[in-house]
């Protein structure tokens, strides 16, 4: 494989709250190849969005990236000045957020908000930027774009707004497109349209994409690689086919069960994950999933789980998987 366009190593993003340190992302590593789609999956609060924002360096106090490195085209993003980073954002890395209703500034016109990005990064004239904006709006499927440049966000529906946001994110044909649950807030019918649009654009531009979602259906449709997160940590990472066919981590397994169950309508084995994920404020050592895990062992509460390169080619972070790979007792995760 060629050199990854983005590689994240040991990323830790912590929030120092009055109530303690929230370890929103605590040791995350992955790579993204050009033109590929990486899906990050996990429940709310598992640190997916924080990961995305860490890559963009959008984390604000009291949050801070405390450790790790993020390299984009062999460039250490964490070493860049804020100005250099600003030049990169929206230019080489574009981002789409989950709530289109609140992601547009209500007091500026749609046109102004697209044009602004173009001018900031290309130094184009107003007219050029405007022309480009029209082109972009057409590209993302907004009808009669010329007439709608002067409209304000409140005159747009949710789906249309998300299209505008996509237009903004791809305005400079970025190398990486990060989409943070881009369809969560939309109607189901619109969701499919937007995902198709994203997929089309990603292919057209040849960008790499990080798609954050909790919808495994989306993952199976879009992803090349999958990264499963739980409580700020990676639990499993690998090729989408591998993971879907052969999930190793008990959590991934649970996640997949909950959709497979619908497909199979197998009512015999209702395996949903009981309980709630812990909020990782000053978490104790050990595996965060252990309280909900059917395979929990004593060691899970004592030591952080190890990274295990599984035989199937994925990476799982689990004592049980390690034991299993080593052929020891207590293995029983696989069907």
């Amino acid at each position, binding site marked *: 494989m060629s050199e990854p366009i983005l590689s994240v190593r040991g990323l830790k993003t912590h929030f120092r709250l009055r109530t303690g340190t929230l370890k929103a992302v605590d040791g995350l590593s992955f790579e993204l190849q050009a033109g590929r789609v990486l899906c990050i999956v996990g429940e709310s609060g598992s640190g997916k969005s924080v990961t995305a*924002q860490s890559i*963009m360096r*959008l984390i604000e*106090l*009291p949050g801070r990236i405390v450790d790790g490195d993020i390299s984009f085209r062999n460039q250490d993003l964490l070493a860049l000045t*804020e*100005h250099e980073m*600003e*030049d*990169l*954002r*929206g*230019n080489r890395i*574009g*981002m789409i*957020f989950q*709530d289109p209703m*609140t*992601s*547009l*500034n*209500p*007091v*500026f016109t749609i046109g102004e908000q697209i044009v*602004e*990005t173009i001018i*900031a*990064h290309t130094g184009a004239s107003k007219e050029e930027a405007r022309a480009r904006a029209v082109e972009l709006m057409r590209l993302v499927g907004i009808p009669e774009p010329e*007439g*709608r440049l002067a*409209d*304000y966000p*409140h*005159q747009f529906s949710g789906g249309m707004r998300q299209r505008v*946001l996509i237009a*903004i*994110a791809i305005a400079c044909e970025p190398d990486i497109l990060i989409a943070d649950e881009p369809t969560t807030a939309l109607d189901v019918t619109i969701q499919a349209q937007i995902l198709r649009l994203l997929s089309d654009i990603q292919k057209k531009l040849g960008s790499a994409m990080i798609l954050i979602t909790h919808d495994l259906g989306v993952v199976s449709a879009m992803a090349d690689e999958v990264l499963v997160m739980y409580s700020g940590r990676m639990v499993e990472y690998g090729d989408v086919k591998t993971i879907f066919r052969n999930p190793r981590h008990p959590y991934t397994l649970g996640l997949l069960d909950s959709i497979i169950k619908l497909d199979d309508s197998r009512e015999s084995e209702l395996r949903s994950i009981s309980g709630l994920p812990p909020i990782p404020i000053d978490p104790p050592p050990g595996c965060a999933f252990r309280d909900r895990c059917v395979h929990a062992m004593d060691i899970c509460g004592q030591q952080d789980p190890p990274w295990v390169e599984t035989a199937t080619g994925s990476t799982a972070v689990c004592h049980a998987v390690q034991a299993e790979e080593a052929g020891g007792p207590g293995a029983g995760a696989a069907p």
Partner: protein
Amino acid sequence: MTRFIVMRLLTIVPIMFGVSFFVFILAHLAPGDVTTTLTGPYATEETREQIRESLGLNEPLPVQYGKWLSHILQGEFGKSIANRRMVAELIFPKFANSLILALTSAALAYVIGLFAGIFAASRPYGYFDRFTIAGTLMFGSIPPYWFGLLLVLLFSLTWRWLPATGMTKIVGGGGPIDVILHLILPTIAAGAAPAAIIARTVRATMLEILSQNYIKVARAKGIRRGVILRKHALRNALPPIATICGLQLGYLLGGVLFVEVIFAWPGIGYQLWQAIQARDIPTIQGASLIIGAAFVLVNLAVDVFNAYTDPKIRISEGVRSR
């Protein structure tokens, strides 16, 4: 937009009506009787009664109110009972004096409040922010009559830089420069609390707005931090900022009584206070009404401004598209 302004202008009518009504009621409810100063301690009840009669104070309140209102509507404020001056002649110059002080104090409060608030919000929980919070609390809770005196003690008495009282020098004064010199200390004293309040509001509003999604989007677009602050955030913070600024200006226009007392500034607040003390009903009513009107007008201006800056209202008619 025009429709909005017209509608808003129409709401002034009931407000001013309400203000006039309450002013009237309270002025007449106030205990103590103007005839005690008008006739002195040896007057017989007959004489007092006669005076009340001649001033129309014996008529039923609704009749008095009706008469007063119809005079006001004709621009007639009546005559001061206590000193025989025409009320208009008495209060308009005082209001002008208050206006001068209010405008300088408001300007000071706006500049300090806005800059401190924005800067504090741009680096939340930093040193400057903490400093600002402490400062706003302190200036918000310093009794103004003490603060004013402290300023006088330092700047007028110890260092002898600035005059301590009044609006002009009594002997040989009165030029613009003289007035400006006399303005400085009262301006600081009157502007301190509004500055603190504005700073606090601006900071809170900016923090709230900076946590909005569209700010994050703007950052993700690669817009420079300063531009985000100045353009995206500030523009959205304008309505609440304008509202608080308007409120403070209205409060200052009402004559900051304590500052006017401490600096012997001949303003409308002090005039009203004196009129209240003399139970000079026409003056009380006139001064209260002008203060109320100023407040209402400032509020109107703020509302129109906010409507103008809010595309939802501005675009509500006309362009409403597709």
